[in-house]
């Protein structure tokens, strides 16, 4: 677990965020929705409810990618920032958007059954 305050944001700087307290090890998601949306694996840690603040959220666009799930990105530069189960209060945050160093290590790979055919997925 990372203990410090974490900051991050999009490539153009229009959307920034801060998270207080420890963050769990990220999951790397190989599902086709994440791979399509990101053009990469979906690598997310978790910001618990009431422990994060978003600045510039007028530049934050949301897309409901499946019922009850939405993905947040910067409407100016397209950076992928958040994945949210609507109403949960907590926010999955892309680890690539965290200001380096993140202090995080990937904890697990998920949805390997839906991995892309252009790489060899890890065996775990």
């Amino acid at each position: 677990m990372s203990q410090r305050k974490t900051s991050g944001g999009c490539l153009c700087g229009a959307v920034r965020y801060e998270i207080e307290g420890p963050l769990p090890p990220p999951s790397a998601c190989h599902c086709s929705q994440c791979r399509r949306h990101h053009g990469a694996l979906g690598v997310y840690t978790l910001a618990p409810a009431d422990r994060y603040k978003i600045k510039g959220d007028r530049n934050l666009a949301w897309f409901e990618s499946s019922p009850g799930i939405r993905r947040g990105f910067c409407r100016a530069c397209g950076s992928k920032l958040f994945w949210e189960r609507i109403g949960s209060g907590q926010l999955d945050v892309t680890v690539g958007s965290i200001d380096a160093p993140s202090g995080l290590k990937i904890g697990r790979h998920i949805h390997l059954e839906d991995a892309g055919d252009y790489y060899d997925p890890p065996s775990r």
Partner: protein
Amino acid sequence: MAQDDKAAVRARGHCLCGAIEIEIRGPLRDVVVCHCGQCRRQHGAPPSYTAASWSNVTLHGEKNLKWYQSSPDARRGFCRVCGTSLFWEPMGQGRISIAAGCLVKPTGLRTVRHIFVAEKADFDEITDGLEQLPQSMSAAAASPPPTTTVDA
């Protein structure tokens, strides 16, 4: 953009919401994973890109494609509706890098190398044993391999 719609479609792709569809009729480059800081932040993780000639790419729903110029000579294309990352374009070269994740299986593509590994983030693991370049492919091509010549 497509010059010959009669040629066979090599690959198709689309964004998450389907507002933008892509057809590629010519050859596709092997997939390269970029570990640079810009890609990491924009995609949320290191992206996998193939590439093609722009002249072989047909877009449907192009009005939904938004470009962000991320450096003086390159721009990134994404769907303004769903945010899907689709393209990285070195402007003016007639080439387009296409995110492999948007392509429909089977892609017939293979990942062959990692670039900008010198900028790799702490959470980023490379475990596949493929070639790793510290910077870009053009930088690697421009610098000759180390030699062991002795002074004349």
